[in-house]
């Protein structure tokens, strides 16, 4: 029964969030809680030669200043510092030694009775450095890029096909460094429970990942550390790996045997991960009719000197479009910066941005409508693997999106459409992401009063996991959603991976189904075993519906769950189940979208407004049309930021970020956002998983920056290939 799945159900955690009752990591308190404030390095590379904490320690209320020189023990093997999503390399260890690896690196933690005191005393810590030569400039270092050993399957001979193509388009597109900037500051409250036991409230996308990590770093037994993050104030990938504040808060708690809270400042959060600046070189070769002969995509991206972070920027062109020849490569440049990390649609947001701008440039050169070009290159099979898709309704996305947008009324000539003194531009792009799924376990406790508690270690970072888990459980157990309570994000709960990659909806929903199935079978067994029960001699299977156990047989017999449990003298039925998806390599699994954008550009001032966006998404079954629409809409806002606003700017003379705050690092504000129309294209998929779920976290951003860049070209006739497209670039 689907009373809730597929409906616009309001968030079950809504009331907690609008009343201020929802507590985030830095808001938990404890007896005798003290506060840590981080001191950061101000050079990008070198060594600490003197770290003088004597003045700071003289401040009344300061309890300690932890540094590499006086800290408690930390693990000395890389293996202990590698969390479940760590890239290759040697992870950063805060306060480990005197080496400086990036500007903004934490080098001391001042701990005081009050936060203000710690913050003041942190200004009194004196540090002398021996600075080494350093490099932070990707473009200057382009020649030193090294090829990553990434699996990619070249098809044919792209180089020769490009040389022979009737029409060629080739260009570099630059996606700058971008920071996640979740609204919540990174924070950890580590509660000292005595005897070395710790309860850690952390801002993270994976409590069990952090729990295992802390056990490794501090040589603790699993039962000694419990990690919770019941509410997470946004993360967008920045909380996939344990961040350094969780190490520092825990280190201080162990050093002082007290509960410690560490909250990073907004500036300090620029010392965490980010979307790496990437030069995307795309070359397309086509025949006169608009069919592709060759696609080539080479990416050159930033990583740190200590870890190799890379994602799939370049594989999308090979997979998406029909082309007999293809080539891709991914190169890295090691710089004196912190390691990049996943940020909403990592790889795809940047790579597909370049690809889809290039496709638009090709369409212009071919004098073809941009949608028409995509349709000419359309493939019903994954071109890289030669596999059919479990489902792919991208064609329908183009059709529905174009219709809702009014694309047919577009005059293809640049600068041909106007609204008063504003030039109007219409652009479009394709989006693509993977449909991943992971093992997740769920426990359901059904009580005789007809309530069920559903629990799992998964996080809800604002994505709506609490709500979809409640919806799926309510339907599977035949109970009203008000009777379902959901507990998440506690490391002691059943297993879940980090919440990322758009895999949590499918993964958690099927785990709920599995546990609910065991409950149903148990109830059926009990109901049939009660002498004189209406189901006593019924061989038919049962359904759970409206609080009843109902026979699927012809007589329609039913008994209430409450009655069966009472007769069976059971207060509760508890079932825990780990759901694993059967491996199936026979089909490709992807979500797709078609994005249409309208911009209006002030001809004299260059001011760009994104006045309309239509995003038509094919992503399997949508569990919740209300929260799902919000997720896509929010992603579109991210895409607008990526296209027009977001850029972390480095001063390469000092190797330091110049706009490490949330005023000079521009993200869209309310006045920047106008009409956003989200269309979910029907995409039944009985192959991918039982419920046909694909996930929505990333797909909404992919393609949006390109659609806007293409619209800017259409409005102005100017092709801007360095993102973000700021007005100075249009006025040049």
């Amino acid at each position: 029964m689907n009373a809730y799945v597929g409906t616009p159900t309001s968030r079950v955690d809504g009331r907690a969030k609008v009343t201020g009752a929802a507590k985030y990591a830095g808001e938990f308190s404890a007896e005798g809680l003290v506060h840590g404030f981080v001191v950061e390095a101000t050079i990008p590379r070198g060594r600490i030669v003197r770290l003088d904490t004597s003045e700071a320690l003289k401040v009344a209320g300061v309890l300690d200043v932890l540094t590499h020189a006086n800290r408690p023990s930390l693990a000395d093997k890389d293996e202990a510092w590698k969390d479940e999503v760590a890239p290759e390399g040697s992870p950063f260890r805060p306060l480990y030694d005197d080496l400086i690896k990036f500007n903004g690196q934490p080098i001391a933690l001042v701990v005081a009775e009050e936060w203000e005191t710690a913050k003041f005393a942190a200004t009194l810590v004196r540090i002398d450095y021996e600075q080494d030569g350093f490099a932070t400039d990707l473009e200057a270092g382009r020649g030193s890029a090294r090829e990553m050993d990434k699996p990619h399957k070249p098809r044919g001979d792209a180089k020769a096909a490009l040389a022979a193509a009737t029409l060629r388009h080739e260009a570099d597109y630059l996606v700058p460094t971008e920071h996640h900037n979740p609204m919540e500051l990174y924070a950890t409250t580590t509660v000292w429970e005595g005897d070395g036991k710790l309860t850690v409230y952390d801002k993270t996308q994976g409590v069990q990942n952090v729990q295992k990590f802390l056990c490794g770093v501090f040589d603790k037994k699993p039962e000694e550390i419990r990690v919770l993050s019941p509410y997470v104030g946004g993360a967008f990938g920045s909380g996939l790996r344990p961040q350094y504040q969780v190490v520092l808060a825990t280190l201080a708690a162990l050093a002082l045997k007290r509960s410690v809270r560490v909250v990073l400042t907004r500036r300090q959060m620029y010392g965490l991960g980010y979307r790496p600046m990437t030069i995307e070189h795309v070359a397309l070769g086509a025949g006169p009719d608009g069919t592709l002969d060759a696609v080539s995509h080479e990416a050159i991206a930033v990583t740190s000197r200590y870890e190799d972070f890379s994602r799939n920027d370049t594989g999308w062109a090979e997979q998406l479009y029909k082309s007999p020849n293809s080539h891709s490569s991914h190169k890295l440049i090691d710089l004196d910066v912190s390691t990049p990390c996943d940020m909403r649609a990592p790889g795809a947001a940047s790579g597909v941005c370049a690809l889809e701008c290039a496709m638009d440039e090709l369409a212009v050169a071919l004098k073809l409508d941009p949608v028409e070009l995509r349709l000419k290159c359309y493939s019903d099979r994954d071109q890289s693997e030669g596999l059919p898709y479990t489902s792919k309704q991208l064609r329908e996305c183009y059709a529905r999106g174009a219709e809702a947008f009014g694309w047919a009324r577009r005059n293809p000539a640049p600068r041909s459409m106007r609204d008063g003194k504003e030039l109007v531009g219409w652009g479009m792009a394709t989006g693509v992401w993977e449909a991943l799924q992971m093992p997740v376990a769920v426990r359901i406790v059904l009580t005789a009063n007809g309530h069920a508690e559903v629990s799992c270690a998964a996080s809800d970072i604002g994505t709506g996991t609490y709500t979809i888990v409640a919806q799926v459980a309510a339907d599977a157990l035949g109970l009203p959603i008000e009777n379902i309570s959901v507990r998440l994000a506690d490391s002691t709960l059943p297993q879940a991976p980090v919440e990322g990659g758009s895999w949590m909806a499918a993964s958690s929903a099927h785990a709920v189904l599995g546990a609910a199935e065991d409950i149903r079978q148990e109830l059926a067994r009990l109901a049939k075993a009660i002498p004189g029960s209406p189901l006593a001699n019924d061989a038919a299977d049962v359904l759970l519906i409206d609080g009843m156990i109902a026979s699927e047989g012809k007589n329609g017999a039913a008994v209430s769950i409450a009655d069966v449990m009472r007769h069976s003298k059971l207060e509760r039925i508890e079932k825990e189940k780990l759901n694993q998806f059967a491996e199936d390599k026979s089909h490709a699994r992807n979500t797709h979208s078609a994005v249409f954008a309208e911009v209006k550009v002030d001809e004299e001032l260059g001011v760009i407004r994104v006045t309309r966006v239509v995003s038509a998404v094919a992503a399997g079954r949508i569990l919740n049309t209300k929260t799902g629409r919000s997720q896509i809409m929010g992603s579109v806002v991210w895409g607008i930021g990526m296209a027009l606003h977001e850029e972390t700017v480095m001063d390469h003379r000092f190797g330091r970020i110049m706009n490490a705050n949330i005023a000079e690092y521009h993200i869209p504000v309310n006045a920047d956002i106008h009409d956003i129309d989200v269309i979910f294209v029907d995409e039944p998929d009985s192959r991918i998983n039982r419920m046909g779920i694909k996930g929505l976290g990333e797909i909404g951003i992919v393609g949006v920056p390109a659609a806007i860049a293409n619209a800017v070209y259409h409005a102005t006739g100017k092709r801007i290939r360095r993102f973000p497209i700021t007005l100075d670039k249009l006025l040049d």
Partner: protein
Amino acid sequence: MADITIPERIPINLVVNGERRALELTPWTTLLDALRDRLELTGTKKGCDHGQCGACTVLVNGRRVNSCLTLAVMKDGAEITTIEGLAKDGALHPLQQAFIDHDAFQCGYCTPGQICSAAGLLAEGRARDADEIRELMSGNLCRCGAYPNIVAAIEQAMSRS
């Protein structure tokens, strides 16, 4: 031995959500930290501490302010309304209900500031249409990108007030 003293504490009174609260605070304590750390009213959020994001918005004597840019001692005697004070006797404020109805948040971290800011906006009576709401709500950042839903929620509350 500590020989650098911190500033002397100053006694102040705040009327927070209708309740008189006596506090002794150092002058460098912001209204935001006084609410969160001293009064344990953590509904008011810290997102930047620099007046850039609006997550800390509360109503001071009915006007919306960034509590991170306000020293608590400057507000001696003031009436402060935080997100915890908007619901009355368990009934949500119309804006709170509208935010749920329109799914005007995802992670929820900017939400208390958005709602307090919107309450201030309604009291100002300056916003007449969606464009003006967008402009006058632009001091409250939402990284989840719920802006269109926030505007719809405020329009709902406006039409019913």
